């Protein structure tokens, strides 16, 4: 399965850079049943990584308890316009996706 779209916005706040990222993912808990009564298997993002100018600054591990179509906000120290931000994720089936952008 290919990964759905991702969106990221990095904006300069007061003293920090606000990074907001949207991810398209089902985040299945493994407890839901489909129309035919079959349990829908666990399927969720496990790892989230934020890089600033190529250097990892946030490393996250998450569970199936994160809501469907996850939204995360992070804050980076200082930062300036044009700084490169990359956010990526990896799910429990090995699917991965990433998005890049510059601080605006």
């Amino acid at each position: 399965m290919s990964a759905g779209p991702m969106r990221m916005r990095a904006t300069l706040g007061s003293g920090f850079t606000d990074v907001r990222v949207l991810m398209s993912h089902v985040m299945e808990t493994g407890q839901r049943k489909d129309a035919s009564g079959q349990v829908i298997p666990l399927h969720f993002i496990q790892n989230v990584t934020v890089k600033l100018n190529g250097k990892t600054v946030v490393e996250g591990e998450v569970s199936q308890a994160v809501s469907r179509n996850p939204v995360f906000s992070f804050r980076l120290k200082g930062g300036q316009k044009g700084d490169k931000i990359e956010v990526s994720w990896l799910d429990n089936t090995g699917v991965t996706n990433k998005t890049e952008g510059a601080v605006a």
Partner: protein
Amino acid sequence: MLKTLMGGVALALAAAMPLQAQVDIRKETQRWQQMIAEGSPAELFEIEGEDLWKKKQGPKNVSLEGCDLGQGPGVVKAAYARLPRYFADADRVMDLETRLLHCMLTLQGRSREDAARRVFGNEDRPSEMELLSIYIAGQSRGVPMAPGTRHAKEREAFELGQKLFFHRAGAWDFSCSSCHGEADKRIRMQFLPVMSQPEGVRKIVATWPTYLVRNAQVKTMQWRIWDCYRQMRWPEPVFGSEATVALTQYLTVTGQGEPYAGPGTKR
């Protein structure tokens, strides 16, 4: 032993203490609503909707990019904020979804059956109509809502919608006004906006279509009306019918002037 008992009593009391005594329900639910709106994934669906707008489909194999939403063929900027409105080529008032359906039939040459087969999607697969609507609506961000009010048919639609809003029927004798007619009322713990008054409906019409967190789906105003009638225990409103467009016209005119701030995120 006594201490344990006392502890038990204290716990039971705490559990029985009504929530209202502890927290301001209105303030806290509004805070939840505000926080979910700040972290809205609605934008993800706008991207998919834009792809569909540009996708060649139907017997004529053309995209919807030539569709006239009221601002000229292909113009999506600020189009949603000026709907519903009268369209001379169809000689009727149309809301966004009715107009999109019209374009699917006339531009793309699709049959009504094909285009309207699946207007409401589910959490695993949103409908084409929902994705298109959320994309088009997103192109009106910041534009004050200004539906058509000058043409006789636009005025007629408002007046019809206004009458229908208060019209009681269905197995439980409900009208829209049964739940949305009085201020500060709730169903369970959900506060109900007064839709017949500008102050109650302005923020509503300026945030639909919307992402609903309770089912992780993007939903449109046609769906909102459809699902209200379901819960009002009426028969099913026909998608894009005069009744549904008249209600949307009534609500949008009542709430006009508010800058469009959607697509929103709601419960």
